[in-house]
C-alpha cells in the first residue's frame, strides 16, 4: 500500500523518473521531441545502451566511447527542458483527474493511519492476552493466599478455644459474675457546655475555612 504512494505521483513525474532511472544512459534523448520517447525502439531492451544508437537508430555511428551517465548528471540535464517541453505539449490536467488525485492522496493518508491502527490493535491483542495470562496467575496466587490465611486463622481460633477449655489454664466461661454492667446514666442528659464554646465559635468564625 505504501508503495502505491510513489507509484502514481503524477504522469509527469513518473515520466521524469523513468527517464532518469530506467533509461539513464540516453542523455541526449531528453533533448528530443517527446514523441520520440514513445517509439518502440527505445523500450526494446533494457540492455540496450549507447547514446548514438538510440539517437539515430537507423544510421550507422562510429563506435565511440561515450562516458557513462552518472546518477548526478543524468537527472539534472533533462529536468528543465523536459518539463518545459511537456508543459507546452500536454493539455491542462482535467478536473476529474485532479479530484481523483486528491482522493488518492487522501485515501493514502487514511490507509497509512488505518494500517498503523491495525498494527497497534493487533499488538495490543497480543499484549492483552499476555497481560491477562499474567494477571490470571496473580489472581490464582491471591486466591490461594486468601484460602490459606482464612483456613489458618480459623484453625487457630479453634485451637485456642480448645486450649482455653483445659482446666489447667484457669480460664472461666463468660458469666454475669465476671461481666461488668454499667448502669445507664441517670438524670439529665449531658448538656452542651455553652460557656467554653462561645469564644471558640467566635474564634473559628474568623479562622480560614481550611482550619
Amino acid at each position, binding site marked *: 500500500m505504501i508503495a502505491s504512494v510513489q507509484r502514481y505521483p503524477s504522469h509527469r513525474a513518473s515520466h521524469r523518473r523513468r527517464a532518469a532511472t530506467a533509461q539513464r544512459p540516453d542523455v541526449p534523448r531528453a533533448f528530443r521531441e517527446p514523441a520520440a520517447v514513445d517509439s518502440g525502439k527505445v523500450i526494446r531492451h533494457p*540492455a540496450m545502451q*549507447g547514446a548514438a*544508437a538510440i539517437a539515430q537508430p537507423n544510421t550507422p555511428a562510429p*563506435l565511440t566511447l561515450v562516458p557513462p551517465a552518472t546518477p548526478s548528471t543524468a537527472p539534472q540535464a533533462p529536468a528543465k527542458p523536459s518539463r518545459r517541453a511537456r508543459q507546452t505539449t500536454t493539455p491542462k490536467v482535467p478536473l476529474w483527474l485532479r479530484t481523483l488525485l486528491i482522493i488518492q492522496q487522501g485515501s493514502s493518508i487514511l490507509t497509512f493511519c488505518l494500517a498503523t491502527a491495525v498494527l497497534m490493535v493487533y499488538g495490543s491483542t497480543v499484549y492483552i492476552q499476555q497481560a*491477562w495470562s499474567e494477571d490470571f496467575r496473580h*489472581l490464582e496466587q491471591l486466591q490461594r493466599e486468601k484460602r490459606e490465611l482464612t483456613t489458618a486463622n*480459623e484453625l487457630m481460633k479453634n485451637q485456642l478455644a480448645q486450649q482455653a477449655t483445659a482446666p489447667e489454664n484457669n480460664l472461666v466461661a*463468660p458469666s*454475669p459474675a465476671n*461481666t461488668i454492667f454499667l448502669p445507664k446514666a441517670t438524670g439529665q442528659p449531658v448538656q452542651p457546655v455553652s460557656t467554653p464554646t462561645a469564644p471558640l465559635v467566635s474564634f473559628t468564625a474568623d479562622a480560614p475555612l481550611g482550619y
Partner: protein
Amino acid sequence: MSNPDFPATPSPPDAPAPPFTPRPYRLQPRRLWIVWGLLAASLAGLGFNLYRLQILRAPDLMEQARNQQMTYMRPYIPRREIVDRAGNILATDRLVYTLYAHPNQFPVSREAMAQQLARPLTQDAEALLKTLKVRDSGIPLAANLSEETADQIRALKLNGLELIRQYSRLYPQQELVSDVVGYVDLDHKGQAGLEYTQEKALERNLRTLQMSRAGNGALMPDHIPSGLLGFDDQRLQLTVDMRLQRVARSLLKQQVETYKAKRGAVLVMNVNDGALLALACEPTFDPNEYSKFDLTLFKNWAVTDLYEPGSTFKPINMAIALEAGAIQSDDTFYDAGKIEIDTWEIANHDYESVGGRGDLNLGEILSYSSNVAMVDLVQQMDPKVYYEALKNLDLTVAPAIELPGAAAGQLKSAEQFIHSPVEAATTAFGQGFSLTPLKLAQLQAAIANGGLLVTPHLVRGLVDAENTLVWEPTDHPVKRVFSPATTEVVLDKMAAVIDAPSGQSARISGYRLGGKSGTAEKASPDGGYFSDRKIVSFFTILPLESPQYLVLVVIDEPQGEDLFGSTVAAPLVKSITEALIAIEGLPPSSP
C-alpha cells in the same frame, strides 16, 4: 560504452567482426522459462501442500492442535462458606490434589522415582516402590495432598506424574457445629445438616472452560465469558453464635460424660423470631473425618427424634386451659398425691415421700410439678376442646427448620383421646404423646413471646463481604396460638418454679427467669414404660420482664442417683444461661 550484444544494430561494414556471437538474446527466454518454471513448480508444490494440509489432513491436524493448545480449565469457584452470626467460618473450601503415577512414562527407573517421591509424600520409599510396581499406568499414589505438597511434586518436574485438583470441604471448628452444618461427601455433595438442605444456596455453578494455551503454557483469554472469574463473595450466615455454641457443647459433653448418658441436646433460641443461637447434640462427629463415625450421629436428634416431654409440657397445658377459659389464673386444684383413672394409677413423683399436697394454685402446681393436680386441671376442659387445642399447636406437624428429617410429633387419634379419660390425664403431665425437643422449644417460645408460634430456623441468609444481607429466607410463618394475657399468667407461674427451693440450681442472681423441669419415663417399644430409663429436661426463659431467650437442655438416659430434670439438666441450663447473658450483654433486672 559500446553494446556488442545489440543484435539489431548493424555493424558498419568496415568494422571488425564482434569478438563473440550474440548469445543471450536467444538464451534469455530459456533462462526465464527455467526460472519461471521453477517458480511455478514451487508455487504448485506449495499449493498442493496447502491443499494437503488444509483439506486432506485438516481434521487430523485440527485435532492435534486442539490437543496441544486447548486446555480444560476449571476456574476456582468454591462452594460457599458457612459462617456463624459473627462471621466466624464454620465450613470453607480448599483445594487438594490426588497424585496418580504412570510408570510407563517415567524418565527414570521406578526405584529412583520412589526415592524422589518419598520425601514430599512423607511415605516410605519401599512402600512407594511396591505401589509403583502394581501396574504400568494409573496408579493412585496419594490423595488429599495440600497445595504445598503439590508444589513440591511439581517442582520435581518428572514425567509420568499426574496431579488432579479437587475441592475439599474443611470444617475448621471440627465437631463444634457438626450437627447443624453437616458434611459433604467426596463428590462435594452435602449429605447431612445444612450442607444437605441448603445445597442450592451453597453451590455455585462449576463451569469447565475450554481455553487455548500459548506456547509457554500461559492461558489465553480467547473464549472467556464475561464475569466468569469474579464470582460473588456471598456466604451462608447462620443464626448460631460460635462462642455460645462452644460453651453449650463443652458443658453438655461434660454432663453427658458425668451421667454416662446416652445422649444430650442443648437448644438456645431467640423466642421472638425463632432463630437458634446454639444447637448442640452429644455425642457428635467431626465432619472432617465423617467416615470414621457411626451413621446415626449424622442426624440431629433434637430435631429428628421424638420423646415424651414429661413435666416440661405442664405450662403448655396450663396455657391451653387458660386460653379455653376453663380455668382462671387464681384457681386452685386438688392434689391427692395419687389417683386412679380407668384402672391406671397416676401418682406424683414424690408421692412416696410427701403424699398428697391438697389444694394447689397454678404456681405451686408447677413448682411441685404435681401430676395429680394437673390431671384435675385438664379435666376442667372438654377432652374434645383439649384435643383441638393440642392439634392447633401443630404438634403433629414437623417444624419447618432447615435441618433434614425434622419429625412431626405423635398424638393419639381423636377418637382414642376423647373417649379414653386416661389419655387426657397422661397428656396433662406430658406423657402418652411425643414430640421433638425442637418442637418443645417452639411451644415454650410461644409462651415467652406472647403466644406466637414462630418458625425455628438456623439460616440468617446470604451475606456479602461487608456482612450485608443479600438474600434471606422468607418462609418463616408465624401463628398465634395463645393470647398475651394467657402467656403472661403462665410466665408468672414459671417464675415461681425458679423462685421455689427446687429451682435453686437454675437461679441466677440479679435476673428474673422462668423455667420448668421435666423428668419423663421412656416408653418401651413393647408398650408401657421403662422404670429405669428416664429422659430429663429443663428450660428457662429470660429475662422475664421482656422474654428474649429460651435455653432448653434434654438429656437422654442419664445414669446414677437422683436423676431429675432439676438435678441433671438445670445446672447445665444455668451455666449456659450465664454464658448467654455475658455474650448477649443482658443487664441484670436487679443489682
